[in-house]
């Protein structure tokens, strides 16, 4: 029993590398940016007093929380109704709403880049929760998945890997070149939460006759308001209706259970990607499938992702570059960290300059190189231009 408990404790609260959570942060930051932009362009309809949901309508839909509670059959009232987190509560000024939505977009961008990550992820979580509480009437399942992801990112050490924060820390010598070890409980919460999503959706579906009878997918395929791309006729008629109905239930059940068993994990996640790929192709449910599949990253350990990147890197062509004369060990460590597949190779004779080489290895890091590598980039550039002048 003690062994079992210690295994559980190790699973939940052990330490590991942060690449999985770092990649998850990049994906969720990007998807938040897309979602936030769509909210921004529809802001008059959804968040203004002239729109479909002015504050009075929002209050009708989600009134203050009940003060009454029941514990073991005992009823009691708390003295006040606790407020929902909503920084837009009571805000009617359109400029203030615009500024708020733009700040949330900025937080999403910074989250994606991993710059000032702790502050950015907290701002993104607060912003997303506020937007969702300001107008819950327009939310769909994907929005809830996104909101939860933002909250988990704010709790997790999201900037410890795959982030500009790490590159800056390495370049300035504030961080060790060794991958940072972080407590894995936020990643475990993400895994379990997504398993709960799949498990409870199967459970609720099982109460429906259409799912039990194998007819459920007959209907969504015929709803014009949901249709996206053309689907072959045979796929929306029996026996494929039964196959896709029961196939959905089985895949979702596996995504809640078998996904935790390492030998099946890859196949279960592949099944999930196929299922969501079909949903995204055939049905217009924006971002939902991308969000769900983004969570799959968290079923892998950071060390597994690093190992995979190294294996892929070996198959890719290496990129020679000519380092600057004054490149420090710290800057070398930062450059190495900015090269996810380990493709950069020092070549003092025929290599291109650092930014050009980085552009091939990691375009985002190359674009932002002056920001995280400052002096070294200038040195490398000078060296490169001096060499060009000399050869000219």
């Amino acid at each position, binding site marked *: 029993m003690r062994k079992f408990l210690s295994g559980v404790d190790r699973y939940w609260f052990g330490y590991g590398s*942060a690449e999985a959570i770092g990649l998850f942060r990049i994906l969720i930051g990007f998807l938040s940016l897309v979602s936030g932009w769509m909210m921004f362009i529809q802001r*008059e*309809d959804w968040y203004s007093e002239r729109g479909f949901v002015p504050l009075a309508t929002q209050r009708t839909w989600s009134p203050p929380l009940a003060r009454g509670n029941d514990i073991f059959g005992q009823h009691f009232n708390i003295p006040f109704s606790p407020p929902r987190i909503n920084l837009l509560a009571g805000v009617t000024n359109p400029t203030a709403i615009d500024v708020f939505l733009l700040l949330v977009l900025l937080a999403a961008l910074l989250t994606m880049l991993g710059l000032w990550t702790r502050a950015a992820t907290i701002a993104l979580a607060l912003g997303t929760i506020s937007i969702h509480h300001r107008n819950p009437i327009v939310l769909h399942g994907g929005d809830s998945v996104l909101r939860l992801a933002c909250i988990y990112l704010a709790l997790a*050490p999201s900037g410890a890997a795959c982030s500009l924060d790490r590159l800056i820390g390495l370049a300035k010598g504030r961080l060790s070149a060794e991958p940072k070890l972080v407590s894995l409980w936020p990643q475990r919460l993400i895994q379990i939460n997504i398993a709960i999503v799949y498990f*409870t*959706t199967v459970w*609720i*579906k099982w109460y429906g006759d259409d799912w039990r009878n194998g007819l459920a997918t007959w209907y969504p395929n015929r709803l014009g308001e*949901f249709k996206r791309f053309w689907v072959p006729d045979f796929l929306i008629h029996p026996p494929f209706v039964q196959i896709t109905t029961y196939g959905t239930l089985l895949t979702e059940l596996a995504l809640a259970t078998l996904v935790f068993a390492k030998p099946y994990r890859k196949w279960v996640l592949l099944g999930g990607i196929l299922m969501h790929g079909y949903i995204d192709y055939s049905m217009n449910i924006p971002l939902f499938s991308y969000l769900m599949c983004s969570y799959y990253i968290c079923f892998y350990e950071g060390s597994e992702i690093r190992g995979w990147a190294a294996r892929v890197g070996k198959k890719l062509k290496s990129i020679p570059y000519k380092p600057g004369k004054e490149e420090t060990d710290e800057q070398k460590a930062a450059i190495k960290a900015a090269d996810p597949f380990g493709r950069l190779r020092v070549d003092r004779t025929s290599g291109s300059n650092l930014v050009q080489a980085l552009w091939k290895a990691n375009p985002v890091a190359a674009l932002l190189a002056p920001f995280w590598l400052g002096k070294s980039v200038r040195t490398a550039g000078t060296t490169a231009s001096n060499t060009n002048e000399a050869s000219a």
Partner: protein
Amino acid sequence: MSKTSEGTVSVWVKLFVGFHLLAIVAWSAPRPQDDVGRTFASAKGTAKLLVITDRLRETPLKYYLLCTGLWQYWDMFAPNPANTNDWAYANVTYSDGHWEHIPYPRIETLPIPQKFIMERYRKFFERVGEANEPIRRRFAERMALIAGRRGDAFPFIIEVIHHVDEIQPPPNDQVISRDEVLIRIKLTEEQYHQLESAPGA
């Protein structure tokens, strides 16, 4: 929380994780069905578990979830998928007797990129169809604002029409369509002026 070598996690974090798991499981579990006993003694099998999670939702646990944005319920296409295709439009009669048809975004007719961006309009109308009178009324008022003034005339009567295509069960590929009046409101000039003067873009 982040270290260069393995450390230990505070007992408070462990307690928080346990509490959080209990809360999200309780909130996500299916609501007890009508045909299942609502007391622990009368419930059978997994329904006993649902009675427990239902009771937990009545405790202050709800504040943790509802205030922080951690609330969640995963009933996409469940327990049964929708079998109706719904969209809306408004018939607006102006104060001078002129009549206009005001469309509400209909996803089926939009080009693919627009479908992606405008999906919330479909979701919103789905909810409005199930909502109470004040929310439906606001829908009609917004349609009046979209219609706008016509010279001196203002939108006087706004009728929101809910179009329903009912999908028949297999193997019947037919669709039965109908139009229903979701709400019909009358505005005075003063009421319309108030709507116009609300802050907005």
